């Protein structure tokens, strides 16, 4: 991937409904940035399904130079089962120098979860990206995506992450790109990227059929088994 034109600090929050791929996108983004030699902090702000995502990957990500703000399961009693306790340092994550990537999960409150982060409201450079997979029943059509994104309180761009797991083919990704593009037009938002699994990446260029930048996704989360 060619280095895209990156701002001084990349401040991005990934939001999306259950199994949209928001965490996968956030993890890949953090690692890509770290591999460019940038200082990156990855923040677990998924308060609905927290322990199922970043916690188990923490050591691996840290090996690759990413600072991870997430509880270790062992730190909290009761969290094998549940676990929705905000780690105090998460509140001040935007004060970390360098890039900050937030996995903000999903839920009734959408991006309002950013209220828990000091300075989020004032921070001009923070972008919230909604990750969309048209294979998910609640974001399958243009009107559904529009409704969904509007319910999230604050979104600055969409990411087409349409996939069918192992069965994904290019046609499906293309179909997703089109639907997401149309939804974005109605919402007045940019499509920030189309994400594809690394197996399909060789068939694509830097941009997809509609000119959206392509991001290559390596799968890390199957390893995430609390």
């Amino acid at each position, binding site marked *: 991937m060619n280095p895209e034109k990156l701002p001084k600090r990349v401040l991005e929050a990934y939001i999306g409904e259950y199994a949209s791929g928001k965490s996968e996108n956030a993890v890949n983004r953090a690692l890509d940035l770290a591999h460019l030699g940038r200082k990156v902090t990855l923040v677990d702000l998924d308060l609905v399904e927290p322990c199922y995502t970043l916690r188990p990957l923490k050591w691996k990500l840290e090996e690759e130079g990413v600072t991870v703000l997430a509880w270790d399961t*062992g730190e909290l*009693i009761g969290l094998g089962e549940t676990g929705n306790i905000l780690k105090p340092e998460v509140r001040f994550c935007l004060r970390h120098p360098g890039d900050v990537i937030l996995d903000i999960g999903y839920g009734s409150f959408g991006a309002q979860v950013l209220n828990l982060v000091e300075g989020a409201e004032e921070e001009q450079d923070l972008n919230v990206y909604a990750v969309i997979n048209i294979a998910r029943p609640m974001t399958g059509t243009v009107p559904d995506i529009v409704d969904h994104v509007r319910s999230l309180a604050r979104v600055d761009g969409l990411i087409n992450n349409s996939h069918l797991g192992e069965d994904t083919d290019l046609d499906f990704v293309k179909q997703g790109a089109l639907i997401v593009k149309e939804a974005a037009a109605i919402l007045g938002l940019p499509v920030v990227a189309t994400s594809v699994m690394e197996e399909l990446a060789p068939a694509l260029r830097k941009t997809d059929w509609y000119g959206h930048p392509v991001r290559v996704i390596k799968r890390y989360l199957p390893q995430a088994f609390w």
Partner: protein
Amino acid sequence: MGVIEGEKKAFMTGNEAVAWAALAAGAEIMYGYPITPQNEIMQYWTRLAPKHERKFLQTEDELSAGFTTIGGVLTGKRAFTATAGPGNVLMQEPMSMAEAMRIPTVVVVQQRGGPSTATVIYSQQEVTLTCFGGNGEGLRVVYSTSSHQELYDYTIKAFNTAWKYRFPTFVLADGYQAKMRESLVLYDPEERGIEMVPTEAFVGKPGMPGEDRPPAHLRNTYNIEEELEEVLKKDIQEYEQMAPEIIEYDEFNTDGADILVVAHGVVFRSAAIAVRKLADEGLKVGYFRPITLRPFPQEQLRQAAAKAKQLMVVESAYGQLLKIVKDNLYGMDLPIRTLLRPGVGVTPEEVVADLRTVLEGRED
């Protein structure tokens, strides 16, 4: 203690026998919720308790009966409760906590018909529930009694087993044993040389916590799998270590039996009468009776079964003892015949008739 002086022959119901046994064992408090057929345990206890400065609390349900019993035990008192049927279902939640935290509770179960409310009369359908209830590994002790004398003996013993090994302990009887009247001998355990295992408080020990002693921080929740595994490994190891010390069983005529009858609880009485009657006639029949259903006398049953041509499992349930027997005989090639009467009593005549069809080749 001096609740009972000398040995006293008495005729009473099984529920009454349990109340006397708990009293004689030095039980200090009972917690309970009404359910037939165990009600009279509470009724007798509440009449006897004040005379001997013992306590009682009637709770709002069996969840509460179980959890208050845990509370009583935590302060170092011999505490117990009694239940049946749907009440036993609710009782499994607190007993699962007792199992997790090694709290020596004692529960008397008078089995009634199931599933659901079914009958208030009788069954042996709470074997699986009592042995393996709760979301755990069944780390508990279950004594299956067959007479009033045993109800008395094993209720006393249950307190000692519980407090010695710190596993929740059950006395598993049934509606027949609860309600019928027959003779037994009441006694003071100390006078018979049965030493009552001393109790110990889990909370409220002397001294200032954090200064004179560490505070008791008791929990049943763990952070990670490995932490739980470590606790369970230790508990399971201690359970298995205990097993040979407490396993009890009874057997008769097991050498070269054409049929070995396996039965527990009150059904064992019918089985024993039937087997002895046919053995008197010169037929090759024997019986094996597990008294501890948890832990199960596995080696002893396997040895007896190895000498038999065929097994016959008799129970007032549709295969609950049978399942345990099969599990414990795993790998042995032995036909098992069954006489399964879920929720219904089994008479000696029925067992005799069934045995004859096999032994005398009258099978259809």
